[in-house]
């Protein structure tokens, strides 16, 4: 392994770090700006997902894992998370409806 390869390996973590710090700053600015809720919320959610993607694929090295493992992890989390959300959603909607009366 050459010195350049070695530095390249480390460099990808630190470029991700700089990108994450910039995203953090942008999100705080958006969060404290007086934007309309319809614009602010999707922007913040997009920033959140981007940060999560960078951490999962770079810091957790999911990008270097076997494709089957990556698909299983993401698939399991989304499926189980979605099921959990639906289970809570029924009660949540009922509570919300009660709060309106």
């Amino acid at each position: 392994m050459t010195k350049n390869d070695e530095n390249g390996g480390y460099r990808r973590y630190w470029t991700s770090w700089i990108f994450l710090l910039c995203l953090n700053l942008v999100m705080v600015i958006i969060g404290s700006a007086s934007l309309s809720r319809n614009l602010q919320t999707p922007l913040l959610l997009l920033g959140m997902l981007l940060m999560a993607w960078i951490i999962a694929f770079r810091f957790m090295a999911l990008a270097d894992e076997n494709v089957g493992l990556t698909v299983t992890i993401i698939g399991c989390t989304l499926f189980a998370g979605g099921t959990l959300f639906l289970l809570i959603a029924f009660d949540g909607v009922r509570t919300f409806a009660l709060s309106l009366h």
Partner: protein
Amino acid sequence: METVQTIERTEAFESPWAGGVSPFKTSWQKLMMWLFIIGDALLFAGFLAIYGFVRLASPSWPNRAEVFHLELIALMTTALISSGATMATAVEAARRGHWRMVVRFLLLTLAGGLAFLGMQAYEWSQFIAAGATLQSNPWGVPPFGASFFLITGFHGAHVSIGIVILLITAVRSATGRSRAGGLELAGLYWAFVDLVWVFIFPLFYLI
């Protein structure tokens, strides 16, 4: 007899249902860590979903700009993200056998984690001093205080456990008893703590 047992064991390991000796071409320790992470992620997903519904069901919700110091929260996020980068570097250094570098970056990760916990303790002390408890708070929305203490407290507990793991890993690495695989598991756990905060940060403090 021994031959029969060996054949049975080999068949069990190599059957398609068992996934072979190394399912997904990864170590079983790493696979178990991923399963733990998925399970723990669902716990946090449940907390955040409940928080969302409680917030929707409440007729009003405190203005976050009046309650939180966003500069402090941004600093907390910076500390945790930076510790994530130092941990990833330590894991990479372990893979290459640079153990001195591993110890150095593990200590930096520990410093980041402790800085985050210190800032969280300060934030909690401010909240408690203002009169917030699990049941009530000065902003008049009882579920707000409960959600805050539950979600940030649960995450803080994960950070504390991570710090203990990092401390043990640093000592083991410094004394030459650690392996790259073990460090990778500690790295996965620490990155997961980072990942959870990335969801709590906008959903609780910004939106």
